[in-house]
């Protein structure tokens, strides 16, 4: 079965994700216009980064109300894999598929930077091949990526082991200077209770080929390659 890369007007990273899936991982994948998307045709779906609908009103909110996201919800109910990257994460949050909110970065500016994230759980289909505690090199590029939630919500995420990635410093520690956007609990990515929906702000597709990495590695591939095993 194939993986869908969903294209909204304003999607930016659609072609990048498609390139990694098809040319690097040799997965069957389609770039699919949001209006033409039917969940039944696919085993997995990627909501790529960008500025869907120009981020009008609030990042991700317009796409969250599109028919395409209704299909995403259906796929999720069927247990299929969904990844939302950056704007895709924002869409998953706005559509209620993942809890919390993504607000303007602390410091308010857009930040494009390679950061380090730590894997907090191997118990998701997307991270089953990575050892817990592994530090990944990966870039972020966003203005609205500060994860926030009610204290109760953060507690639930922790208790249910839903925090998948946290920002860390160069030594792998949770520190203020390792947290680029001021996210609560240094959260960089989370999953749903059923563990088949992953949302993350960093861009694994930009860290999937050694030539593009300042560290000459391809840590993003460790996440995206799980889509080959669907």
């Amino acid at each position, binding site marked *: 079965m194939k993986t869908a890369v969903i294209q909204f007007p*304003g*999607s*930016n990273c659609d072609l990048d994700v498609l390139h990694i899936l098809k040319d690097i991982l040799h997965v069957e994948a389609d770039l699919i216009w949001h209006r033409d998307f039917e969940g039944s045709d696919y085993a997995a779906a990627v909501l790529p980064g960008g500025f869907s609908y120009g981020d009008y009103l609030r990042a991700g909110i317009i796409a969250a109300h599109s028919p395409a996201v209704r299909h995403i919800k259906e796929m999720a109910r069927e247990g299929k894999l969904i990844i939302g990257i950056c704007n895709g994460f924002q869409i998953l949050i706005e559509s209620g598929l993942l809890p919390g909110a993504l607000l303007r970065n602390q410091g308010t500016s857009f930040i494009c930077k390679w950061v380090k994230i730590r894997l907090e759980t191997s118990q998701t289909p997307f991270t089953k091949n990575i050892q817990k505690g592994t530090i990944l090199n990966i870039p972020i590029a966003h203005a609205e990526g500060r994860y926030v939630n009610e204290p109760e919500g953060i507690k639930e995420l922790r208790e249910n082991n839903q925090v998948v990635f946290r920002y860390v410093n160069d030594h792998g520690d949770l520190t203020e200077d390792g947290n680029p956007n001021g996210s609560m609990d240094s959260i960089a990515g989370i999953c749903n209770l059923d563990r088949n929906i992953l949302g993350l702000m960093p861009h694994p597709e*930009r860290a999937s080929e050694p*030539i*593009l990495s*300042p560290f000459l590695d391809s840590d993003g591939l460790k996440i995206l390659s799980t889509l080959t095993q669907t």
Partner: protein
Amino acid sequence: MTVTETIKVNLTPRELEEARRRLGREPNQTELGMIDIMWSEHCSYKSSRQILRKLPKSGRRVVVGPGYDSGVVDIGDGDVIAFKIESHNHPSAIEPYNGAATGIGGIIRDILCMNCRPIALLDSLRFGNLESSHSRWLFQNVVKGIADYGNCTGIPTVAGEVEFDESFETNCLVNVACVGVGKAENLTLGRMDRPGDIIVLVGGATGRDGIHGVTFASRTIHEESELDRPAVQIGNPFTKKVVVEATLEALRASKVTAVKDLGGGGLTCALSEMSSKGGTGVEINLEEIHVREQGMTPYELLLSESQERMLFTVTPEGQEEVLRVFQKWEIPYSIIGKVTDTGLLVAKYHGRVVANITSRLLTNSPLAQRISRRPKTKHVKKVLRRPVPQNLSDIIYRLLSQPDIASKELVYRQYDHEVGVRTVLKPGDADAAVLRIIGADKAIAVKVDCNSSYCHLNPYDGHAAAVAEGARNVAATGAEPIAVTDCCNFGNPENSEVYWQFKEAISGIAYMLNGLKIPCVGGNVSFYNEDERTGRAVKPTTTIVTLGLIEKLSHITSMALKKAGESIILVGKTFPELGGSQYYRLINLNGGRLPHPVASKERASIRTVIEAIRSGYITATHDCSKGGLAVSLAEMAIKGDLGLTFDLGAVPHASTMRIDEILFSESSARFILTTPQARASKLLSLARKRGVPAAKIGEVTESNYRITTNRKELVECSVERMREVWRGAIPKLMEMA
């Protein structure tokens, strides 16, 4: 009463007379507005065309040269690169956020018109000193405008330059370049060749914004310029992104015969240029245009510069297929007319002819007769008389915190420089950005350069140096420089001294391009960058975008020091050339002898470096420019988080030079390279073979930056502290209340 008395035009009496003569009658009000726009400096290049002819524009890689929306260069295997730079100085000086943003919008369309996918943006910015709150306001908002717009379009901003100088206090310079990639066989030219084709206006609705934006840009900035704010267009990056994707998709249908962006001069400019290039005419119905304001007059419809609009010509058979693409992307469009064989631009409004004028009359303005005169004030070739500073490490720290040298991280962190998964060498990594060509074992390097202080002291040498620096910058990453495009920013060309600067600048550029055998495939000219109150013009500044080709991905080289123990080799000779240097600026010394670039020396140094890199034993490269040897080495140490030690006695230099001159001279044709110790002699013999002075001047160490002279310790700096001052300087200035 004639119409010429009813509307205000900027045409000179001589130009008006010429227009009447060519038309054979009195133009009506609409036609007069069209002629006024098309014969403005901005659209017609009437002061610059005759001078720009001096630039070399041919070469084996040139596919499309000057005169089209962008230049196009062949990079092998059927792949082509389109690139172009444009100024958005006047709008940015009045309304920095939207002014800069729309500058990006325009340049993206220029690439798109050739059927190339935009893959990179570069920005070259100049502001007054950051001690001024006005300059900080301009700087902050221009950068934010570029970030917000560029990021949303999904095109990475990969490189640029920023200079600060009081001459840009009122008139900041905002030059934006775009690079695109495509296939030679799919190129389109903005030319209407086929009578009968349908003309479709696509994108944003037409409003009254930007009317006479180009005539505004063809004037100096004066007290009432604030009132010109309505002449600054408002951009919409989301619409732009959608237009980009829809245009590329429509072009894939190959039923589109030509595309052109609507920029300065609006519909009038696009229609007349496309038809006059193709030797055709057009007939359009203005009431068909989708508008966002009611009651617009034909004059306004023809001259509006509303953003995010493109003009397509489509074969009648292909019309339906192409329109379906616009429907899919939900982009508004209107079919506004057709291509004819008459050579006339005929505009109708509800059936009534409102303009009927030969396309070529509009696009072929009379040349302006400009007088050029060398300024009387001579820059004194000063000799440095004050003693060598006691504390040289302090000078080095202070140079690293000079805004022109200091890290521009504050700027490039705000730009998405990764999107597109092509950016191999990112901002700050090297002398140029490097983007790979996906699916091939090759990459391109791009950089934009100019040193306005040099150009002010000597426009000929200064501009020749800008070309040389661009070529060195791409060469340092392992690329062969293959083409340039330029953006001229000058004061009022009616001022004979400004016109002299312009002529000298172009001669200097032509000299270096010819010497390096690099063609110029396009350009942009911005005059009237002058404050009317003070009569002060900007320092003459022609920014040069250099495109380089890297034949193998393994050749890509960055500037960071890689490993302790490696040898540091300096290529090129150092002369006492500190005029316009950062050191003189720091110690408040004006004038002086500036670097004198010699094409043959540049060529020899560049060839040496490229050959060495291709041989595979070069681990880091950096061109030696602003701040001289001392600063360039410091930058390599900071980037690599390693130390180094070098001996001044080993530096190949002219006789009788002072220590500070050797350290801080900005002589041209120099590079710093590192290589494993065992390969140092190989590199030196390669240089010798090419007649290039070169020497091993030191080696990479674990920590600390040390300079010795004849084995005596001269300077010791902490790399950590150097990084702190270098990174912190601009944020600190921006935090000033």
